[in-house]
């Protein structure tokens, strides 16, 4: 009797195995972390992201190796700067960098969660910072690539609560080309000690100021010396 009951299950399992085996070979069966980030999906999508962005990263030595930190990047509208910057920094630092601002509706929200996206909610950011994660927040989007938008102070607040450092990250990308640059600046320290919410408001303003300064001195989307420059120098 037990064998009779077992029969359809065994047959179905065998059919399932045959169907799923190619998928299992291509796709690791456990690959999400505590926040739902999927490193294997990111690795699988890497050729496509490289097709869009060829990112040059600088200043990553400013970032802590083990502890958490809040990174704030500037953002040109529709440039997805937080995403390419987070992915590029993850690769360079060899530890996940999560970006803030995923939507919470399918299918985009869940896909961005698998790429390391968090909701633009202070509680989500605080949760990640408390677990020593690197979290990337975007300043408000601007139409000009060299303008740093306003930094939302309510998203800076979790860094104050968790007691983690804040770093400005200047980003620049070409609208049509693949070239993109990500430059991490030194830690922004609050000018004065505040006990109340003014601390985060002032820190957000300072970060915006730092970002603007970095963007003002930023070269183009490429780094290094172009052949034409050699000619000019020669």
């Amino acid at each position, binding site marked *: 009797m037990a064998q009779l009951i077992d029969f359809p299950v065994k047959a179905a399992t065998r059919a399932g195995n045959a*169907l799923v085996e190619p998928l299992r070979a291509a796709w690791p069966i456990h690959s999400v972390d505590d926040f739902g980030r999927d490193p294997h999906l990111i690795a699988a999508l890497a050729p496509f992201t490289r097709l869009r962005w060829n990112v040059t990263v600088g200043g990553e030595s400013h970032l802590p190796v083990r502890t958490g930190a809040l990174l704030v990047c500037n953002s040109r509208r529709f440039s997805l700067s937080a995403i390419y910057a987070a992915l590029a920094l993850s690769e360079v630092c060899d530890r996940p960098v999560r970006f803030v601002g995923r939507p919470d509706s*399918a299918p985009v929200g869940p896909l961005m*969660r698998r790429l390391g996206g968090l909701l633009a909610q202070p509680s989500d950011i605080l949760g990640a910072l408390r677990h020593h994660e690197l979290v990337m927040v975007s300043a408000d989007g601007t139409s000009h690539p060299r303008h740093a938008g306003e930094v939302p102070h309510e998203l800076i607040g979790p860094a104050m609560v968790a007691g983690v450092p804040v770093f400005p990250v200047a980003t620049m990308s070409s609208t049509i080309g693949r070239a993109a640059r990500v430059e991490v600046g030194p830690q922004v320290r609050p000018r004065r000690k505040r006990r109340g919410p003014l601390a985060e408001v002032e820190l957000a303003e300072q970060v915006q100021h730092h970002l603007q300064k970095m963007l003002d001195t930023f070269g183009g989307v490429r780094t290094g010396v172009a052949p034409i420059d050699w000619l000019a120098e020669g």
Partner: protein
Amino acid sequence: MRGQRVLVSGMGGELGSLVAAKLEAEPWVGALVGIDVDPPRRRLRKAEFHLLQPSQRERIVDVVTKFNPHVVINLSVWEPDARTGLVHARQFTADATTAIIGAAAECPALESMVVRSGIEVYGRERNAPTRPDETSPVHPTSEYGLMLANIERQAREVGRRVGIAVGKLRLAPVLGKHVPSPLGRLLRQPAVPFSMLADSPFAVIEDGDAAQAFVAAAARRLDEPINIVAPGAITTLQSILRGKRIPLPLFGPEWWVASRLSHVLGAPIPDHVVELMHRGRLADGSKAHEVLGLQPRLSTPEVIDHLYAWESVVRIGSINEAVA
């Protein structure tokens, strides 16, 4: 603190039996009494058991007040579609909660109460925290979540009125060899539906780890909510692939048909499981380690592996027909 009297409501369930077995081994436990609608599922040496229905309030009050416990552990929670349907689950849970928590409040020796809750209390509405911790607001969005939030509310009110410590253990979906779970049952079906558009991650907890958390909470007189979650996360598709089941991708409206069909086939899918598959269910379990010193033995993927490793039919040897 030796010789403490401990009452376990819901001792007949798998989790309750495990908690009772672990409490028997604790040096601080003097006497142990259990109440449930089913007898305990393991051999208990010290515990005294009372077979009582949740509706028998007067008898429950009588047993509890006579025992006059120092600690009450309330595990009388019926998860919808685990052992019974939603209507009965709601009724039994409400009756048991009122009777047990109400009776406990009448006991002069009572010092602490630990109640079973779940991470379903956080809800999964739009923009709800991805990985809520204990400070996140309670905002259930499923029937089971509402039931659990109601238990927490009643326990909190009694705790405030009587002046006792009330610990609330918010468990991730509990999976174990003999734990009736709609999620576990669904994942073990030959073909398992999953949300193609979302396939969100979730976390679970093994029944042994959950039981250990209750014992630790009772011993420490816990007086706050704590998430009990195994480390790591997994998505439904990853679970299906681990279990070598047939993945059945669904996009939206056909979920209704799939859940009805699954019900007919013996694995009903309640709304909190649908919510888990669509919106995910994670929680921050780090406080359990800080406060209770609890380090779950198994991670979420390991619990899922164990789920698939359990035999559907356990053969206990051949029957000698000549003797029969």
